[in-house]
């Protein structure tokens, strides 16, 4: 409520948004893992409790990470089903895409604008 109803000092945002960063050895590189503060996790869980179902409904089968339960399992089964039925078809394949640093290249303002106007 404090964040929503006023203009708190920057230090409060910093405190809420801070997190610990640990590194895992991903030989030869390093895999950074962020662990958010408890207040931030609590806040996010509150938002999800209110809006999570609508987010899952909107994502639907478009992006299975939007809150659908067992989304990974659904993706794997769905991919296997279509591969099984088309495996012997001429000139048919299943492509697995990989993007460069996708989570970090997303623009935050664009992201919020998109969510607002869906």
């Amino acid at each position, binding site marked *: 409520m404090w964040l*929503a109803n006023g203009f708190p000092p920057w230090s409060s*945002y*910093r405190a*809420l*948004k801070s*997190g*610990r*960063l640990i590194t895992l050895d991903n030989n030869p590189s390093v895999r*950074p893992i*962020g*662990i*958010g503060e408890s207040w*931030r996790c609590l*806040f*996010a*869980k509150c*938002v999800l409790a*209110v*809006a999570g179902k*609508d*987010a*899952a409904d*909107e*994502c639907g089968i*478009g*992006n*299975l*990470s*939007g*809150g659908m339960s067992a989304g*990974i399992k659904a*993706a*794997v089964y769905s*991919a*296997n089903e*279509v*591969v099984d039925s*088309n495996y*012997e078809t*001429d*000139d*048919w394949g*299943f*492509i*697995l*895409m*990989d*993007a460069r640093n*996708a*989570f*970090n290249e*997303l623009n*935050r303002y*664009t*992201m*919020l604008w*998109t*969510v*607002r106007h*869906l």
Partner: protein
Amino acid sequence: MNSTAIRCFGRLDTYDIVAVGLHSIVIAAGPLIIRGRAGISFYLFSKTGITQGCPFTMPLYGLASLPLIRKLNTECKLDRHLWYADDSGAGATFDDLDKYFDLLKVHGPSCGYTPQPHKCILVTSDRNLSSAKSKFERYGMKVVTESQYLGGFIGSPTLRSD
């Protein structure tokens, strides 16, 4: 989306507290602290994309990727088009997959999705392997008959049952 909290940015109603708070929690650059030796800490500021450690970021990323997914769905003829977070997969004929890849290269970067061809994998059957290689290896893609996908397996049905 109907009557959702995340749709209510800038609108004063019951979800006002959640909406403004969400705006601040997403936009503000959070410090990520790395503990060093002898009490020395290093700070990194997460200023772009989604921040690790926040449970809300995954649904938010899912929602933000929807315009790109819908555009690809309408412009390409795909037998199956699957996304789980930033992992995408599509099953179609080689010509349609070629078009899909080209469109993703054109429209993806503006949505923060820049494909890396040398990390992309095309799964196809043995009999289609040579034609697939002639078509997709020029991008630097790997062409294989089986592969891992989201912890599962994709490839020959007989091989999977084994």
